[in-house]
């Protein structure tokens, strides 16, 4: 197990390096640089100073080596060009917290509720609860999040003014964003769970368990849940990675100081250090989440073996 995790972490570092390298050269291929994104045309001397300050006057491969050197020797991802003075690492550290707070809570709620609804839906197949839950699930995946957000905002801040419209600082500010963001995972997990539970309940071991006289609750917990949760778990990893990086739409609607906006503006502003920093962050979290999910597989289903140890 230890050996496996170690091996995986080494692979992860390799993947991170590959993704970083590719992104680094790709972003220098797109037309424009941080200066062209600014409207004004600067005098040549000023321009030259500006490029020199951020090392943009050097060949791309040299910039890349300097960037790697910065990571290994100083542990820095560089400074944002669009927002001079803001260290990319600080921005990531600071804003992934608010994005994560909202996102992880939303995914947790979506996951837990989704699992429950999925099981209920499958066990009551074609009965009223199943139909109701399916309706919710379909609405959840098909209504765009900004529509849900606008409607909820109007209802809970204008018609029944019990929550703040936007802003950040108190738990109250988090209620609506979490609600909006949990809807889509909720629907996804419900649908995944429903179909895998339907699969499992027809298995022989369920009949066997019933024949043994096991109580219904026990069957659900011991046999059905464990065997049907794996598909949902597979998508949980990427889901968690996504939420750390924030939702551009939700964060802009509710004025949340999260990472979402930085992802979009970094690209449109050609803010190279910010693009590469956020890509590395996302990649890192993503592969870490995949590793955690792989380990969780073993915990939940002992039949799965991570390594060929005897």
């Amino acid at each position, binding site marked *: 197990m230890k050996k496996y995790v170690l091996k995986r972490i080494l692979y992860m570092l390799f993947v991170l390096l590959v993704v970083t390298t590719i992104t680094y050269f790709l972003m220098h291929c*797109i*037309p*424009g640089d941080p200066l*062209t*994104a*600014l*409207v*004004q*045309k*600067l*005098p040549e*001397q*000023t*321009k030259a100073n*500006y490029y020199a300050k951020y090392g943009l006057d050097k060949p791309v491969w040299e910039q890349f080596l300097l960037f790697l050197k910065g990571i290994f020797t100083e542990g820095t991802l560089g400074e944002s060009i*669009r*927002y*001079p*003075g*803001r260290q990319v690492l600080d921005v990531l550290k600071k*804003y*992934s*917290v608010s994005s*994560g*707070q909202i996102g*992880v*809570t939303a995914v*947790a709620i979506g996951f837990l509720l989704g699992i429950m609804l999925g099981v209920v839906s499958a066990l009551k197949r074609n009965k009223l609860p199943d139909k109701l839950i399916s309706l919710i699930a379909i609405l959840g995946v098909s209504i765009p999040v*900004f529509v849900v957000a*606008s409607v909820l*905002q*109007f209802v809970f*801040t*204008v018609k029944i*003014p019990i929550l*703040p*419209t*936007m*802003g*950040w*600082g*108190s*738990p109250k500010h988090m209620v609506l964003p979490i609600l909006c963001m949990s809807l889509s995972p909720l629907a996804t997990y419900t649908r995944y769970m429903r179909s895998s539970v339907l699969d499992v309940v027809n298995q022989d071991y369920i009949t066997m368990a019933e024949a043994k006289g096991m109580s219904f609750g026990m069957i659900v917990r011991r046999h059905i849940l464990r065997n049907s949760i794996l598909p949902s778990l597979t998508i949980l990893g990427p889901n*968690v990675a996504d939420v750390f990086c924030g939702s551009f739409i939700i*964060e*802009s*609607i509710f*004025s*949340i*100081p*999260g990472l979402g*906006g930085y992802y979009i503006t970094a690209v*449109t*502003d050609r803010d190279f250090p910010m693009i590469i920093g956020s890509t590395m962050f996302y990649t890192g979290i993503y592969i870490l*989440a995949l590793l*955690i999910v792989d*380990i*969780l597989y073993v*915990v*939940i289903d002992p039949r799965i073996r991570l390594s060929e140890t005897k």
Partner: protein
Amino acid sequence: MKKKFLAAALCAAMALSTVTGAVPAMAEESAQVLKTYRTNEPATLDRVAPTIDESGKYILHDASEPMVRIEEGKTVEAGCESYEYDEATMTYTFHLRDNKWEDGEPVTAADYLYSLQRMVDPNTAYGYVSDLYCIENAEAINAGEMEVSELGATAPDDKTLVVKLNDVTPAFLQVVPLYPQRQAFVEECGDAYGIDADKFLSCGPFRVTEWEHNSYIKMVKNENYWDAANVKLEEINVAFTNDSNTLYSSMLNGTLDYMETSSPEYIEQFESMDDMVVQDHVTPTLGFMVFNCEDPVMSNVKVRQAISLAINRELFVEVIYNNLSYPAYGLLSSANSLNGVSFRDKVEEPLKAFAEEHPDPKELLVEGLTELGMDPDPSKLEITVSSGSTTASSNNAMAVFQQCLQETLGVTMVPDQTEWASFWNDCKAGDFQIGYLAWSGEVDISFLFNLFLSDSAQMPCFYYTPEFDEIVNKANKSTDDEERFSLYGEAEKLVIVDQCQLAPVYYSVNRSVLRSKVKGWDYNVFSTAGRKGVYIEE
């Protein structure tokens, strides 16, 4: 059991970030609180940084004290008690007030001088540095040929700032931002100056106390401000959001006191409410097509004129902006004025007369194509219009252009939409045929004209003429308003009609909704008064 524990621990690890502590809540409500917003947060509060944007300037109007402010179209003393201009030596002398920084230190002439020096320093890369070239030695310093200390500005004592110009510049006070910056503080912050509440020093009517990035900025009254007795607001909250539904809900439930909108449904509702004031005001922003005059087809002026005339501007503003913006037949909107007299009251829009002379633009096009030695059949011509926006509104604008050009001229138009940086990069490199964009004018009437001067060549039309340069340079230095009007009128006719580097499309209009209990609001788009005179009527 062990496995269960492991599972729990792993889950906990994934949720780790949620346990970090909560941030302190927003302050309690008080009567003199203004709640407003900006669509994006400032990139910086450093007035001379290359990244300074409109949001940054907006905050600085409240949190800093420029030497003079523009209030209701007039220049009034702010950081200085008085100033005089000596025509013989072309020197401005400013006599400072007893103003203090938020920490109690006096604001001195050296602080104003320091920010001027930083602006012309080539290492700063200030974007509009050419505005400062009217100051002695500024251009040479920016080119790296002279030292920053040789700038033609001095602070003989703590209360006096002397700025020596190298040429007559009637717009000096309007175009050169004279904002104080304390050297010791700026140097201590380094690159981080102006990017956080604690990395910025206020000396205006308000001081920045909180800045939650991408969420809000909070300012409270600055008791150290020289005119604090006349500042009525206790607090200003500036939220950052650009979602129209959020703004709408916020106006209804009192989270905001002000919003701008173009949605007819919202306006209808707000107009029916007693406690809201709806106002329209034309901005200096012009939406236009710029022609790449080096393009083989666009190099012919008649072709350009034909395309410009083919655009149905009335249809455009109706379809794209619900008539919230005005059809443009000139370069300057009615927002631009000289000493309170609007440019548009003095000068007719040049394209109107030209359109009357040429009721059928197709004839012009055919003539132009023949001159170029091309097939005179317009249906064989394909032109590309590029835009730096991929929004729905931009798509619709392109569709309107397509329809106009097809119906009036019979040519095929291909839209080419990319995101801004790629588009602008292509434009600067001359890799386009016609570009569709908007540019905002400034308080200084010459601003939009200067874009076409051959030595600045900011507008990527690749066609700059000595004739135009001469007229504009003469106008820029004239102190006679009548003469300036007529010279700028000539220059406008050159750009829009005779040389036709640009086809104006629309003048942008702001429609704002303000809670009626908020008084003292300065609607003038060029106002730098800030929120100093605003108060809440109880």
